[in-house]
């Protein structure tokens, strides 16, 4: 900012601090609650500073069982979530890269029709086609499997569209130079197209990983075996205890653990993410 007014600096900092407080307070409370015994939260007062049961709760939740009727340890569910999220992310990126490549760089009959058909699938997210999709997966015998968890979520019109835009902005002379240099379609794809869309891929990776990680409805439907439960859907199951008190400390620990991987991805790829969305190297 060019202006230098002390009160303005003060006001903007104060606003930011209040904002941080508002956003971070629930996270803080979750962290604190996970370190108190289960009874503390149920007794009606909300502790604001760490208790002494932290180590035990976290250890139990992570490695023995999540509690509240969920007998699988969190690290196992985390692994399931990770496999699903990464499967969806890589599957989506690979498929949409290839379909965008075909649509932009090859001349074949009904090319535009293909694009519009892909584009129209935007109107058919999993929630809309959930019953038929479930039937297909069930008929294929893919219930309770990683394939069943990831496959129906892989097809992606959004990513195809994004890569199409990215490829369209590629200068035509670059394609021609590669042709004269003797690069066939695969060489061109791997040597030139892929490196040049690096930042777009990274940006998409962040968005799709979070999308995959946060999947709730689909895993809830097709998994009935504890071994395939994902973390996000299990939190809800932990809340529905039929008798007895809810062990809030365990739930809080699980929730925080569920938050960590997306946060790590966002922080780790922040620079590439912004670069991919705002600028292009071309």
């Amino acid at each position: 900012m060019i202006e230098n007014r002390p009160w303005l600096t003060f006001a903007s900092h104060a606003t930011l601090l209040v904002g941080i407080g508002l956003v971070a307070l629930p996270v803080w409370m979750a962290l604190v609650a996970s370190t108190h015994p289960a009874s503390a939260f149920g007794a009606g007062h909300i502790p604001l500073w760490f208790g002494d049961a932290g180590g035990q709760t976290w250890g139990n939740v992570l490695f023995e069982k999540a509690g509240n009727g969920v007998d699988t340890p969190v690290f196992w569910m985390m692994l399931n979530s990770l496999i699903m999220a990464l499967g969806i992310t890589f599957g989506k990126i690979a498929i949409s890269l290839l379909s965008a490549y075909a649509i932009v760089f090859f001349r074949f009959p009904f090319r535009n029709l293909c694009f519009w058909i892909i584009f129209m699938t935007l109107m058919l997210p999993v929630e809309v086609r959930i019953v038929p999709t479930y039937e297909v997966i069930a008929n294929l015998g893919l219930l309770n499997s990683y394939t069943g968890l990831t496959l129906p979520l892989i097809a992606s019109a959004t990513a195809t569209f994004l890569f199409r835009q990215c490829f369209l902005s590629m200068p035509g002379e670059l394609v021609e130079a590669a042709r004269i240099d003797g690069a066939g379609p695969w060489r061109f794809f791997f040597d030139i197209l892929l490196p040049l869309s690096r930042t777009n891929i990274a940006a998409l990776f962040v968005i799709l990983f979070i999308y995959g990680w946060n999947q709730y409805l689909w895993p809830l439907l097709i998994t009935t075996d504890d071994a395939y439960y994902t973390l996000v859907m299990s939190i809800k199951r932990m809340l529905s205890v039929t008798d007895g008190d809810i062990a809030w400390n365990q739930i809080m620990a699980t929730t925080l653990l569920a938050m960590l991987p997306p946060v790590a991805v966002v922080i780790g790829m922040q620079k590439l993410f912004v670069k991919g969305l705002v600028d292009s190297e071309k």
Partner: protein
Amino acid sequence: MTDVILEKVGKTYLNGFQAIPSVDLSIEEGEFIVLVGPSGCGKSTLLRMVAGLESISSGTLRIRGEHMNNKEPAERDIAMVFQNYALYPHMTVYNNMAYGLKNRGVPKDQIEEKVTDVAQMLGLTELLQRKPGQLSGGQRQRVAMGRAMVRDPTVFLFDEPLSNLDAKLRVQMRVEIRQLQRKLGTTTLYVTHDQVEAMTLADRLVVLNKGKAEQIGTPMELYNTPATPFVAAFIGSPSMNLIDATLTDKGIELPDGLVLPTDTADAHRGAVVWGIRPEHLDVVNESEADFALRIQAVESLGAETLIHGVVGTESVVVRLSGPHLPEINSLMWLHAPKQHWHLFDANTQQRLSV
């Protein structure tokens, strides 16, 4: 040996638009051919057809005697320098130059040798590990040329390679391109819209107009004996004064009743276009003058002065060496020496003997 032969090569687009009706051209080994013309005349299309980036609708293209119409660009033994250089932005200068060789399966040590040689020739040795984004316009231009040179092709194709450089660099690169081409002796096809570039670089020029080759010849042939009014106006700067006139037994009758007596051997009578270059008009006394110019504007360029004015109602430019400061609206008496006249049939656009 003839390196490249174009026989009745034509291009018609799918929508029926005929960009190039038919062009015949044969290029000798080591020759520097420049395709020149105004924008939209089809010069780039013709070049891209030789490169294989556009399909050839009719006629045949031969390179070293081999029929090339349906060959992929990579199989034609050509290398191209693009207007925007088209360097791969994510690769270093070294890899940019080596990429074409790698794809052809040339062994690594040979690639290194070739790239190092060419880099040295172009003064790029220090820059080999940089990326194109870190280079200046002139350096990028050199890398683009280097990429073409390492391949050691039969034909170099240049598509307006200097149009993105500033004026000073353009002159420098122009000289460099000419020297390099002489040294390498590689047949070259070069597209430009800039007639100065065309005149200075070419062994032979092809002037294109609406997809037709108006005239093919050395720069001096085109300057001294342009075949059509189009070529006459296009070659030379400022361009030739062309006046619609009538050829009668008395001589050339200009529209304002002025008559330039001539005893032309040509039997043609009727509408003609009479032309004379601005540098060939002489300032003389009233008694020796063919006509008077009413001065409208003076452009002093130091070494020369361009005087714009009207003869009757026709605008005429005179080019005089050294500084002159005639008054606006005054009269200037001019003599047009007969050996510098150009005469064209107004209907057929063909050159007539004076």
